[in-house]
């Protein structure tokens, strides 16, 4: 028998360590130490009801356990085999206690569709994919469905593009299928560029065949015989596994001519990108594949009319493709029951930043940010206070406390001033300065702007400079108005999605953290204590014993003072490196 005690950060904070001790002690008292083991586990993801104790093999799940409950668990459950009813989880709706975690709603919060095989199969072995219904959907399409049927199925499913825009996938396929040409293309956009996002990489590394199968289905539906995956060269492992997968699919005849004995032929090749953010924009992506500069062009014409080499081209994101085989196998009506009214299915998120359970999750559309961050994500690191979550990368915005209960879907996030984006979620705590966060994203945009249109090339640079002035305490309140005006102009006049969305991190932080901007400007203070230029190192005279340790450690000679006399830090020379604070044994130096 085993007693599993949650050792996640949340449960540790509520003293799960002492539960382990008490259980062990109690087992020893009863002479059961040899038969029953107490084990500390990772986070059960149910931190709200922690600490959690789970009993194996019968899977009983105890919540909110205290160390004094150890006696009862050992006496009743371990010795007499009776569950301790009062420690079972009470279902708030059905008003009954549930003893087995498999029946708890909480464990239905994550549903893996796009990630169904990630972490289950060997991505370099096509047989394992086939063993989990791989290529069945392609076979079903070719043998039992017309291209129109396939498109209708995808349309009915309500699937929307997972790359960020949320354009209905079925409609995109329909447009591409209606444009006639001697050659058409299917392109998979694997140019994942948002800072902190790694959903697509994980899918390609964990389940490459799913993407190949879906591209072939798309080829069948739109009458295209060539597929291209545009992937950044910075993803060597994903590239290696895709190459292996393509070879295996060709060997089995699942790519190539006469697939499943039909006239349909389809093959896939890889194209490498050099890691330019703008190449995630579909027209820039296509130009890059053609060997031209990775610069966007005005739409229309859309790629569905004139895409790669001037031919009709359908571009979808990795995660979008990963959903396709499941929709075909299980049907549109299965898929469109998951999610919200206008956003169907699930979304994969990469949780990063100041969150305990950094990782990949997949939740149905309509899950709230609170559930994602505080339950699945295990809450904020080191018990700090939640401040904001950044979604949508450099095109998105920051959502705050008041948005925590908003159900996540395409439209709600836009209404809240951010966007879904490709699925990066960066969680921030009280120590993060929101002006600096906006500055970070603008720095990224300035670097990644292709320079073709002036609003983006020049405008973003000016935005960055203004933010820089604010973080140095050199801006005025008029600058804030100027900042906002310029944001609006850049959004309205930029050529492609990059410039049209790059001011979003500023606009959303202006809306949600206005006071923080004002504090930088009027009080010359950074409330989060992040902006170096607004910090001042000062000596507290009462504490300073004049030991001169700080004088010796200061690299720029900014500290002066006589031995055994209080010292002084010259703010004009100080570079705020913090060396003096570290050295001082008397807490005599503080940052103001």
């Amino acid at each position, binding site marked *: 028998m085993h007693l599993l005690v949650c050792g996640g950060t949340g449960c540790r904070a509520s003293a799960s360590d002492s539960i382990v001790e008490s259980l062990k002690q109690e087992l020893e008292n009863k002479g059961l130490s040899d038969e029953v083991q107490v084990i500390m586990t990772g986070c059960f993801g149910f931190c709200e009801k922690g600490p959690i104790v789970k009993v194996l093999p019968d899977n009983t799940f105890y919540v909110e356990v205290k160390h004094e409950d150890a006696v009862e668990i050992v006496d009743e459950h371990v010795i007499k085999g009776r569950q301790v009813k009062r420690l079972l989880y009470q279902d708030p709706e059905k008003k009954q206690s549930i003893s087995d975690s498999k029946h708890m709603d909480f464990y239905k919060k994550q549903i893996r569709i796009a990630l169904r095989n990630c972490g289950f199969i060997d991505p370099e072995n096509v047989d394992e994919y086939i063993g989990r219904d791989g290529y069945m959907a392609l076979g079903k399409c070719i043998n039992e469905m017309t291209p129109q049927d396939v498109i209708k199925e995808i349309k009915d499913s309500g699937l929307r593009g997972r790359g960020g825009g949320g354009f209905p996938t079925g409609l995109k396929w329909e447009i591409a299928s209606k444009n006639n040409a001697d050659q058409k293309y299917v392109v998979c956009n694997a140019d994942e560029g948002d800072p902190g996002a790694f959903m697509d990489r994980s899918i390609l590394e*964990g389940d490459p065949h799913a993407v190949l199968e879906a591209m072939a289905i798309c080829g069948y539906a739109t009458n295209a015989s060539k597929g291209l995956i545009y992937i950044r060269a910075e993803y060597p492992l994903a590239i290696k596994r895709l190459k292996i997968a393509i070879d295996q699919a060709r060997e089995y005849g699942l790519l190539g001519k006469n697939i*499943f004995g039909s006239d349909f032929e389809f093959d896939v090749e890889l194209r490498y990108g050099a890691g330019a953010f703008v190449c995630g924009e579909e027209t820039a992506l296509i130009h890059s594949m053609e060997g031209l500069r990775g610069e966007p062009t005005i739409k229309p014409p859309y790629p569905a009319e004139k895409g790669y080499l001037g031919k009709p081209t359908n571009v979808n994101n990795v995660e979008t493709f990963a959903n396709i085989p499941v929709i075909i196998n299980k049907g549109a009506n299965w898929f469109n029951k998951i999610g919200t009214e206008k956003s169907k299915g699930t979304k994969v998120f990469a949780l990063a930043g100041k969150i305990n359970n*950094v990782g990949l999750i997949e939740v149905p559309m309509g899950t709230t940010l609170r559930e994602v961050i505080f339950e699945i994500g295990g809450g904020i690191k080191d018990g700090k206070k939640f401040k904001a979550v950044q979604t949508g990368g450099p095109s998105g915005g920051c959502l705050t406390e008041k948005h925590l209960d908003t159900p996540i879907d395409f439209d709600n996030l836009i209404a809240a001033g951010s966007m879904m984006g490709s699925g990066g979620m960066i969680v921030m705590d009280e120590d993060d300065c929101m002006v600096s966060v906006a500055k970070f994203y603008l720095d990224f945009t300035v670097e990644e702007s292709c320079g073709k249109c002036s609003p983006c090339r020049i405008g973003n640079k000016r935005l960055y400079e203004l933010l820089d002035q604010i973080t140095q305490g050199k801006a005025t309140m008029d600058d804030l108005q100027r900042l906002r005006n310029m944001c609006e102009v850049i959004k309205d006049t930029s050529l492609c999605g990059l410039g049209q969305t790059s001011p979003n991190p500023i606009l959303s932080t202006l809306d949600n953290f206005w006071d923080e901007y004002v504090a930088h400007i009027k009080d010359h203070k950074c409330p989060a204590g992040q902006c170096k230029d607004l910090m001042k190192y000062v000596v507290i005279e009462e504490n300073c014993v004049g030991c001169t340790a700080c004088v010796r450690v200061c690299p720029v000679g900014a500290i002066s003072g006589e031995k055994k006399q209080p010292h002084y830090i010259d703010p004009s020379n100080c570079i705020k490196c913090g060396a003096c604070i570290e050295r001082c044994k008397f807490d005599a130096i503080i940052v103001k």
Partner: protein
Amino acid sequence: MAKIKTLADLKKMREDLQSKVDLREKADSPESYVQIKVGMATSGIASGAKEVMDFLIEALEKRNIEAVVSQTGDMGYCFAEPTIEVQKPGEEPIVFGYVDIKKADEIIEKYIKRGELVDGIIPQNYQVIDDKDNKKA
């Protein structure tokens, strides 16, 4: 490798592959294999999954434990990399996090040999869609 020419070919192949897997899962005899999957996505490899996998293969062979060690993608628990999933014959798979070589050794000696769990288990907190449910429905 033979080509798959029809949907019937594919279905037959899938049945074969599934029954192989089922055999492994259902078998209860000590001769049958222990299955270990090592999460080998970029995040896993960066935190040392490759060394752990090499160690597992070598150590299991040396200690005469019949096991299949295979790689897999990202299990999603990036905070606890490297992660491995161990399935003993006839038992539910268990995921262990923070597995370095020392931990891998402990898992072999305690869990695989003696059935004792070790610290660092990652409880599964999600559902995976299962196509088999659909066929019944």
